[in-house]
């Protein structure tokens, strides 16, 4: 079973002070650490588990600059067999639709049974790439997958829906699945795998090597800004029992429980 995993190298902003840069369209990144996008690590692990079960090869693909090769190498150490970097430096600003088209133009010539992507990237958070890519490749897809199993030609998946509902699907392969965090426990790389990965060649594809040269954009980033801080205070009056009942109602209405 051959599997493709799309991964992205993203800045780690959870433990950082995020500042907008001088272009007003990006954040200052020079002090930040970078790592594989969180849900992509689960997508890669899901691929590694499938490979353990069925054999076959895993190919990881990233549209990124040279630094993305570091992340691709980590993927090679954690179970991938081949790695492809599409040179992001060959393109100007890209929206999610363009990124999906570029990925498609490479993936359409590869052999695969399954494509995994993370369900969302922690930087742009569009959640579009996986599904748009599947549509462009004209294959079935399922998003936010929290449980996955497959046999040679069908996948048995569970998706997380709003309000705690789970959808159970039987999907014909080849298909694309966007993977939710927590579906598995991503593995460590062994030192043997690390050494092997350090020596592997990463295939680098430039814009002029793609079958297509125009990629339609359907959105433009206007500006990035820190939202103004808004405060809302609501005093719940009445007896302890009344105010607790009101509080319980609010928590329930907001779907916090």
């Amino acid at each position: 079973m051959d599997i493709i995993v799309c991964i992205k190298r993203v800045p780690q902003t959870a433990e950082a002070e995020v500042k907008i840069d001088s272009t007003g369209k990006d954040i200052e990144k020079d002090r930040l650490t970078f790592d594989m996008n969180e849900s992509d690590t689960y997508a890669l692990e899901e691929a590694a588990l499938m490979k353990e079960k069925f054999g076959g090869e895993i190919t990881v693909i990233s549209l990124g600059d040279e630094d993305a090769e570091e992340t691709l190498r980590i993927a090679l150490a954690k179970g991938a067999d081949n790695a492809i970097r599409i040179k992001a430096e060959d393109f100007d600003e890209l929206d999610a639709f363009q990124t999906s088209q570029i990925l498609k133009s490479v993936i359409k010539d590869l052999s695969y049974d399954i494509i995994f992507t993370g369900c969302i990237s922690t930087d742009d958070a569009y959640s579009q790439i996986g599904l748009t890519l599947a549509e462009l490749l004209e294959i079935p897809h399922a998003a936010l997958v929290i449980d996955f199993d497959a046999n040679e030609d069908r996948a048995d998946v569970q998706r997380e829906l709003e309000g705690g509902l789970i959808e159970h699907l039987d999907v014909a392969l080849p298909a694309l699945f966007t993977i939710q965090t927590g579906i598995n426990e991503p593995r460590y790389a062994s030192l043997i795998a690390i050494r092997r990965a350090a020596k592997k060649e990463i295939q680098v594809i430039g814009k002029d090597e793609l079958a297509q040269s125009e990629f339609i954009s359907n959105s433009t980033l206007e500006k990035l800004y820190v939202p103004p801080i808004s405060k809302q205070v609501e005093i719940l009056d009445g007896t302890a029992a009344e105010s607790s009942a009101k509080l319980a109602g609010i928590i329930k209405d907001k779907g916090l429980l």
Partner: protein
Amino acid sequence: MAKKIINEDINDEIREVLIEEGAEDIYKCYQCGKCTSICPWFQVDMYNFPVYRFSLETSMGMVASSEDKDELAAEIDKIYRCVGCDACVTQCPHGIDTPSILRAARRLLVDFGSYPETLKSTAQKIKNVGNPLGEPAEKRADWAIDLNVPKFQEGMDHLYFPCCLPAYDSRIQNVAKATAKILQQYDISFGILGEKERCCGEAIRKVGAEKVFTEVCKTNIKEFSGSGVKNVLVSSPHCFTTFKNEYPEFGADFETLHITQFLSKLIDEGTIKPSKEFNKKVVYHDPCTLGRKNGVYEEPRNCLKCIPGLELLEVEEFNRNLSVCCGAGSGGLWMEWEKNERIADVRLKQLIDTGADIIAVACPYCLQMFEETLKSMNLEIQVLDVTEILYESL
């Protein structure tokens, strides 16, 4: 499951990379096992931690080598159990530096994101905001606001570098405050760097995040030399050891003293003479990094012995170079070990069994580790830094 070793498993290449990364001591090991019996994990009954195997396994290139996901996770868990206390180094007949052998493996693992998540997040915080707590730089000097501690300026005798925990942690800030107040009381010329301070990076280097360490180390050296710093006083043995023993390799040119060394000298000279009685039984816990690693055993004791009324106790056998680690070194402070697998419990029991009212420490990591552990114990015993006790008695 015991590992069956067959010749094919031996991996020369991995051995050679690990040697390059600092595991050069491996061939000196003759498997006597002394390291295992002195290691604090040996005193934690629940955990089997065969220190003597690390040299052997490294010499065969069989470290973190399992192809099985769970076995590999267990191997990496072991590599991250070492708290770098150096007990094994001082007891090994050949002085083998086992923590550095393990750090060699950690360095390779860190580069490939294959280390515990909590340490990854600590490394990120140090790189992104300059401290392991993830606090903003602007708040770094908040502990000093009420004390009028000046910003360091060229010409001042000392830079006081409080370490990230005394700078930010609401409990441990009291250590920085006590220190500053003692220095002010004796008209010592000193200042702080405030928001320009960054973590010294000692612990994260031991975790294996060499790149993060190199970056903070170079930034600090630049800041110190740019500000004209010649002498640094530190509260933490971790800042102390890295400034003194590791920073010079990166071009640092300043002298560092642990605060207890500096105060002990003032006591010997007769400048500091505590007058208030402190009628308590106090047991001193030697921090590994100040004691075993840097031979500073007597100065902290000197700061306590001079206090009238204070009765200084020792942990029988396990004091000075046989002191048992609190468990916080080499990233241990941020690890989450099972309840019955904590070194801090073992050491606390030894300290409590002396019958002391107070545990005196000279390290912010020990202070935090013991305080956190004591919280769940409901005991009267208190943990205080040597400077806090000394300040009380002035």
